[in-house]
């Protein structure tokens, strides 16, 4: 698909370069337009939560940033550099596989269904990326993995395979696995939705400590409004592939301006 690339800078420069920028991003599946000209900036160290009804395109936003999906138009920038495109002869062209790999190294993701590697132990899961991708020595990778497993409270289960772990435990290992790659941006897609209610706090407390203790940039999709209120710097309400309303948690959650936001929030709060 052709579109005018001259509106998009080759690089983001200046003082307030966002860690992530979606500029006019459109995504279609066949006839269905899932995201329609999305513009979204996430500053370095910012925690942005995306809420919205099912099917509104929340997951798609994260998957495009993780390069699990291609985009149909627009440009995504990460850390000032284009992710979906690259510079060639002073123009932006589609990113090559090598370019994607380079920029993707700044991003980590946790999935709703964990997606741990079943044939590796908890420790093996956390060492796989550092050894295979970053080229760390076995000793270094193990040291790093153990520190992270300890941080998520899973050091004792280091030698267990995922099938022996509960959902909450698996998700904590998955967080450690993603962090072991030292990403600058972390994506969380409904990481507590597949969990039993009583173990949700295992995972949310890990994410809370990440927010408190690290300068990670985070983009999170969740249905847990209370949790989002506690830890987010900003909440975006998605509706039908667009940001319908966004703002600081207090403002958006307590005095939403938009009818749809109000409806969504009252429906979600009723359900809880």
């Amino acid at each position, binding site marked *: 698909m052709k579109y005018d690339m001259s509106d998009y800078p080759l690089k983001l420069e200046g003082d307030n370069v966002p860690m992530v920028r979606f500029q006019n991003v459109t995504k279609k599946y066949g006839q269905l337009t899932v995201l329609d000209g999305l513009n979204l900036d996430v500053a370095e160290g910012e925690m942005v939560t995306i809420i919205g009804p099912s099917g509104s395109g929340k997951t798609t936003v994260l998957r495009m940033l*993780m*390069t*699990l999906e291609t985009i149909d138009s627009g440009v995504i920038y990460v850390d000032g550099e284009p992710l979906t495109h690259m510079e060639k002869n002073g123009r932006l062209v589609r990113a090559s596989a090598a370019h994607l*790999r380079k920029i*993707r*190294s700044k*991003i*980590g*993701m946790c*999935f709703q*269904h964990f*997606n*741990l*590697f*079943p*044939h590796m*132990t908890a420790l093996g899961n956390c060492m*796989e*990326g550092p050894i*295979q*991708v970053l080229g760390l020595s076995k000793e270094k990778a193990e040291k790093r993995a153990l520190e992270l497993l300890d941080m998520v409270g899973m050091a004792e289960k280091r030698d*267990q*395979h*995922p*099938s*022996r772990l509960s959902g909450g435990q698996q998700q904590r290992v*998955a967080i450690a*696995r*993603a962090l072991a*790659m030292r990403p600058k941006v972390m994506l969380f897609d409904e990481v507590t939705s597949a969990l039993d209610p009583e173990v949700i706090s295992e995972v949310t407390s890990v994410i809370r400590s990440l927010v408190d203790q690290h300068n990670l940039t985070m983009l999170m999709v969740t249905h847990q409004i209370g949790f989002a209120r506690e830890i987010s710097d900003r909440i975006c309400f998605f509706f039908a592939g667009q940001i319908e309303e966004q703002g600081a948690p207090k403002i958006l959650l307590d005095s939403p301006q938009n009818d749809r936001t109000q409806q969504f929030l009252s429906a979600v709060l009723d359900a809880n």
Partner: protein
Amino acid sequence: MPYLDFLTTYSDRFLDGTLITLGQFGLAVLVAIIAALISGLMKMSHSKTVRATATVYIELFRGTSLLVQLYWFYFVLPLFGFTLEKFTAGFVTVGLCYGAYGAELVRGSIQSVPKGQWEAALALNMSPAARMRRIILPQALVTILPPWGNLMVEILKGTALVALISVADLMFETRQINNNTYLSAQAFGTALVIYYIFARFMVTPVMRWLERVMARKIGRM
């Protein structure tokens, strides 16, 4: 001649034939694994040419008979300037024939690995080759082993046809013994039992054992 005398008289020939059969079997399995892996992966390629090449190989070998293929490799291929010694022609043809069946198993087992596994490997920024080698193939191996065990028995049975291009395997020796003695029940019966013992009490248990080992490795037990 009592059966015991028959056995002692011909045990050497049965043994020689059995060893050749095992050699044919081992080498044919090796050829089949390589052919199935390569063509199964090619079938999943993005390139149409690569996919078509694999399809031609698979359909050619699955669409014709092993015996036709054996004769063709042994008698016709030399006319193209490739002369294969009969032992080689035997296991290569058997391996290629069952490799074509194995290709579908390879493809199916790879496709059975959940999509989330590809995605998690990509999110760790692993290269396509590393994703395949480290994440996908080990998991595909667990699902392919049971049907591959059945294929192994078929390969063992398939090696009996190499006798028809005069490879001196168990089948060949048995026929010779039959021709010399006319003790058909003894000769063919003994060979049947030997094949049966290999298939039922060696190939199948080894495959079952492998299945258990792999299942344990993947932590599914």
